């Protein structure tokens, strides 16, 4: 039922060069879209590698370096999608960045930057995507959130708040964009084992703690979220609107 559901469609994934974004890109590439665009910031090598992997699956793809926290660069990104692909059907708003600090140490600029790069990027991306999507009868927007939106994790205040904004915006956008044929949902992942997580100084203790408290008793993989995103990009999820799907192996159930 989900095979090749994206034929003729154009997909844009922000933060698509590595980790979760890359897994989503490869999973969606399997559905044979007409074109895939990878947004990324500075890791040119990783972006090239991911583009090559997508192309190897027979899907035309290219990458665009951008900063999703800057409005003018976001507009640029979507202009390029329009120019080079002529349309947009699916937006995966995955790019995320933060400063891990306690709330008392968050200064004006850091707070604003985290909001710009995570919360506003989702709103602005959805706005720009919706303009493109309505020209061809609709589309799908999927945001990637994390459990920090509803639970407390050390240093996660700013990003958690931004993710909560994303989940709330998804509800409003789902209602307001439904007449345009656009579906908006969010996937909320627990701890996902990615390269950037492996950089954490207490990685080993952290992952031990998480595995022990996860009913499924393993760490989440990028692919665990990619499958859920693929479902939300398929017609099978047409009746699911404005929802935040938690995919965490049950971790948050007994917090």
């Amino acid at each position, binding site marked *: *039922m*989900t*095979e090749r559901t994206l034929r003729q469609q154009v997909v844009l994934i922000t933060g698509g060069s590595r980790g979760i974004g890359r897994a989503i890109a490869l999973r969606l590439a399997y559905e044979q879209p007409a074109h895939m665009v990878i947004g990324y910031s500075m890791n040119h090598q990783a972006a090239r590698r991911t583009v090559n992997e997508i192309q190897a699956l027979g899907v035309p793809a290219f990458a665009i370096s951008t900063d999703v926290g800057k409005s003018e660069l976001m507009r640029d990104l979507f202009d390029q999608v329009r120019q080079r692909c002529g349309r947009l059907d699916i937006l995966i708003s995955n790019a995320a960045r933060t400063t891990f600090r306690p709330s008392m140490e968050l200064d004006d600029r850091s707070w604003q930057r985290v909001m710009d790069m995570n919360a506003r990027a989702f709103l602005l991306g959805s706005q720009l995507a919706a303009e493109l999507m309505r020209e061809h009868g609709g589309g799908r927007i999927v945001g990637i959130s994390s459990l920090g939106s509803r639970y407390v994790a050390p240093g996660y205040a700013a990003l958690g708040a931004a993710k909560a904004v994303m989940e709330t915006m998804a*509800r409003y956008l*789902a*209602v307001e964009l*439904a*007449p345009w044929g656009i579906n908006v949902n969010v996937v909320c992942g627990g701890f996902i084992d990615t390269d950037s997580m492996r950089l954490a100084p207490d990685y080993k203790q952290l992952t031990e703690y998480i595995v022990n408290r*996860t*009913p*499924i*008793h393993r760490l*989440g*993989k990028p692919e*665990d*979220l990619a*499958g*859920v995103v*693929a*479902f939300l990009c398929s*017609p*099978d*999820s*047409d*009746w*699911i*609107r*404005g*929802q935040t*799907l*938690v*995919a*965490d*192996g*049950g971790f*948050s*159930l*007994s917090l």
Partner: protein
Amino acid sequence: MDRLTNRVAIVTGASRGIGAAIALAFAAEGAAVVVNYLSRKEDAETVVAEIQRQGGRAIAFQADVTDESAVRRLVRTAAQQFARIDILIANAGIVRDQLIAAMTLEQWETVIQSHLRGAFLCIREVLPTMMAQKSGNIIALSSIAADHAGRGHANYVAAKGGINALTRSLAVELAPKGIRVNAVSPGVILTDMTKRVRNLANDEILAQIPLRRFGEPRDVARAVCFLASDEASYITGEVLHVTGGFGL
């Protein structure tokens, strides 16, 4: 169309409506299906015939899910017929709407029993098989009514609230056994059951659904297929709302 190849599913209350749609969708994904029904034998046999016509495997089996021995027979038959049980859909349940002041104990109990006792008995009964397989997948049918209060069906709302809590607690309890437990929470879906209840004020309800249409059983069935598939392998304890935006 092969996400559930070689899987075996029991769908309770599958003669009509959402249950029937789930049975048909499962079969289309390659699963063998036990179509459970309470009283509508002909409807259940129609579902089975439709599955067989499309080359699928299915049997119909009568059982009252609130009857312990009937549930035991249902599960035993499924296991004997298809050698395993991978998926249980706890869907059977009835409505008996009434304002609380006028609600009879019988109205309260039949609704609570059909949903909660029914889910409990079916789940408990399939567990030995699923545990032996070290894998299994349980999906209960909840309702948006559990989260968004309405008048005149407190018994149903309480039952569905119970289903959500049951889902979360069993997800934690059964994860170590390789069994995932989730629920699907439909919004306003057009079925014989809801048509009967909701023939009033359709326009008013429609105005609250962003997609401006009522849901169809297959809308729910597709979400259930996803949760039953390997793509959802990291999702457990989740109540997935399938509402067309209703209730946001």
